[in-house]
């Protein structure tokens, strides 16, 4: 456990003052519903792109994936590369035009336009539940870090940080959330980057680190991305390439990055269509680099930490450090006075960006897709802004409750993946069919989404009640938890797609005139022919895709 110096404390306190101060400053610019819920749709591509990524880069990402890389090795980088980049580029090039041109306020709002009210309400309710859970998980993750590193009381950390987030989101809405996310993004990088740099110096560079890992963990492959994925038993994660490529790379990743309103909200706040398309591409370019501050510290922990970390259950029983402690331990190992404060600030900033992202998205969906749709259809703009402000407080309070609930779960990351497979995987099936297939009908969209969500929860319950069922869900008795999550997502997505197609063919098609601006083939997309090559989003998407392929080959 570490004692903070006055300099460290000053850095942390200054951070809290800065984020609340920005909220107060932006309150004067947040007058209408468009300002509060969509930041006035005036964000540049860079602001929207960095905020798009920062909203995802919560403390859970930092701490959870550093832990996963200690546990599973470089395989954890799949969640940053194949589990993100193709989907982000697909969002930019294929899906953003429909979100943007339809002028929807939210993803459930798009479903209302495309499939009608029932699909919107189902998606809004499941999204609301998921964001509150995710926010609570983030909160717990941060409080745990502060408890491990500083010995701070877990309740104190949860309440102080939550009240701060509530304050600046209530004041400035999405505008304040986005501005603070950009600040938090910079602090996360500057606070966490040093661990990797000094760690590589200590380990003797990349090759020195690999040699140390092989020496300390003989017979286990922690440093290859693809070569150990031939069979479930050939890698520490207990998964095969089908689960990674289709479960993660296709369903979970496309579901999250293209339909989770937490991230999509940042993009549709862009000032024009070109900026909205560029934002996810900018986010993807930075996303590819995030393993340097998240995965690498976990690998370095395998190489240099004197003790071997264990799972959460074993850690609780023996008093040893768990996988989740790897990032705090590395921080404590290298960061002296001042830098420790900056590192802690990075973790707190990660927590706040993740939580503010969830809360601002929850507020918009609750106000527009539940309150305005079901409770009070006609009211003034001021009234909905007021409801949004109260909803922010309500969302934070619900998240605090969830944080206490999450404490009961042994593994944070498995819980997150389970949530994604419940809500996000089927939603992707519904949205992608809605955008790309004009024959999909309102009934098809609703029943497909319901069947996909139901089947995912059903499969999860089946394995919970009978662990032997894993061999059927993940197609192998050798599969582990992570493989189960990937395959469950894949099944639920396929169920959603199948039910949507079957029900759509059984029901009357919608006239094409109702699908203009919503569906590919019925919508005239603005031409980019007048732009120079380097100004076109498709060009930069190609550059990012090329770097992505090169990274896969280097770390194969």
């Amino acid at each position, binding site marked *: 456990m570490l004692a903070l110096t006055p*300099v460290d404390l000053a850095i942390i306190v200054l951070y809290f003052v800065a984020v609340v101060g920005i909220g107060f400053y932006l309150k004067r*610019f947040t007058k209408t519903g468009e300002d509060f819920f969509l930041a006035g749709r005036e964000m540049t591509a860079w602001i929207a792109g960095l905020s798009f990524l920062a909203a995802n880069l919560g403390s859970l990402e930092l701490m959870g994936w550093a832990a996963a890389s200690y546990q599973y090795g470089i395989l954890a980088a799949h969640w940053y590369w194949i589990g993100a980049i193709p989907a982000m580029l697909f969002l930019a090039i294929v899906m953003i035009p429909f979100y943007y041109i339809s002028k929807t306020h939210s993803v459930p709002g798009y479903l209302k336009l495309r499939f009608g009210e029932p699909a919107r309400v189902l998606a809004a309710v499941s999204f609301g539940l998921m964001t509150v859970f995710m926010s609570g998980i983030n909160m717990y993750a941060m409080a745990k870090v502060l408890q491990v590193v500083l010995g701070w009381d877990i309740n104190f950390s949860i309440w102080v940080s939550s009240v701060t987030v509530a304050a600046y989101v209530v004041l400035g809405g999405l505008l304040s959330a986005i501005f603070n996310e950009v600040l938090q993004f910079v602090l996360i990088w500057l606070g966490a980057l040093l661990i990797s740099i000094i760690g590589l110096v200590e380990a003797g560079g990349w090759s020195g680190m690999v040699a140390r890992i092989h020496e300390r963990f003989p017979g286990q492959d922690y440093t290859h991305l693809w070569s150990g994925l031939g069979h479930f038993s050939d890698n520490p994660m207990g998964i095969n390439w089908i689960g990674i490529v289709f479960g993660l790379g296709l369903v979970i990743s496309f579901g999250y990055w293209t339909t989770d309103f937490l991230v999509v909200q940042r993009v549709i706040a862009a000032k024009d269509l070109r900026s909205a398309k560029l934002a996810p591409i900018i986010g993807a370019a930075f996303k590819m680099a995030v393993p340097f501050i998240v995965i690498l510290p976990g690998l370095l922990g395998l190489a240099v930490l004197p003790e071997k970390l264990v799972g959460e259950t074993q850690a609780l029983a023996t008093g040893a450090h768990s996988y989740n402690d790897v990032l705090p331990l590395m921080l404590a190992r290298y960061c002296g006075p001042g830098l420790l404060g900056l590192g802690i600030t990075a973790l707190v900033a990660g927590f706040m960006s993740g939580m503010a992202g969830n809360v601002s998205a929850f507020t918009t969906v609750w106000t527009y897709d539940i309150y305005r749709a079901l409770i009070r259809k006609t009211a003034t703009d001021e009234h909905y802004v007021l409801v949004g402000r109260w909803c922010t407080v309500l969302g934070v309070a619900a998240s605090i409750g969830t944080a206490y609930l999450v404490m009961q779960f042994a593994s944070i990351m498995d819980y997150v993946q389970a949530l994604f497979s419940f809500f996000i995987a089927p939603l992707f099936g519904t949205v992608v069919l809605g955008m790309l297939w004009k024959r999909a009908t309102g009934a098809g969209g609703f029943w497909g989404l319901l069947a996909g969500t139901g089947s995912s929860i059903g499969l999860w319950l089946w394995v919970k009640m009978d662990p032997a069922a894993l061999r059927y869900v993940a197609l192998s008795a050798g599969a582990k938890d992570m493989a189960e999550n990937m395959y469950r997502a894949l099944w639920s997505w396929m169920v959603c797609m199948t039910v949507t197609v079957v029900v759509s063919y059984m029901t009357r098609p919608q006239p094409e005139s109702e699908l203009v601006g919503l569906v590919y083939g019925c919508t005239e997309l603005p031409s980019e022919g007048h732009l120079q090559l380097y100004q076109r989003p498709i060009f930069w998407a190609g550059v990012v895709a090329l770097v992505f392929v090169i990274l896969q080959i280097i770390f194969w």
Partner: protein
Amino acid sequence: MHRSDMISIWFFIGALLLVYGLLILGAGLHDLVAPAKHPVVLASLHANIWWGGLLIALGVIYTVKFSPKKS
């Protein structure tokens, strides 16, 4: 943002980095004069001195470039 009356977020970031840089550099210089009893691993690199310097440089660049007085 398009609103000309709004201070750029990059200015706020620059100001915070500048203050952080000064604090961290100061802590690093103090460490040189009075080394810690339980130093961190590779304390000999004096990371807080050069990292503090980097933050100051970034902070100055951003506060000057995005200064509200310029717009």
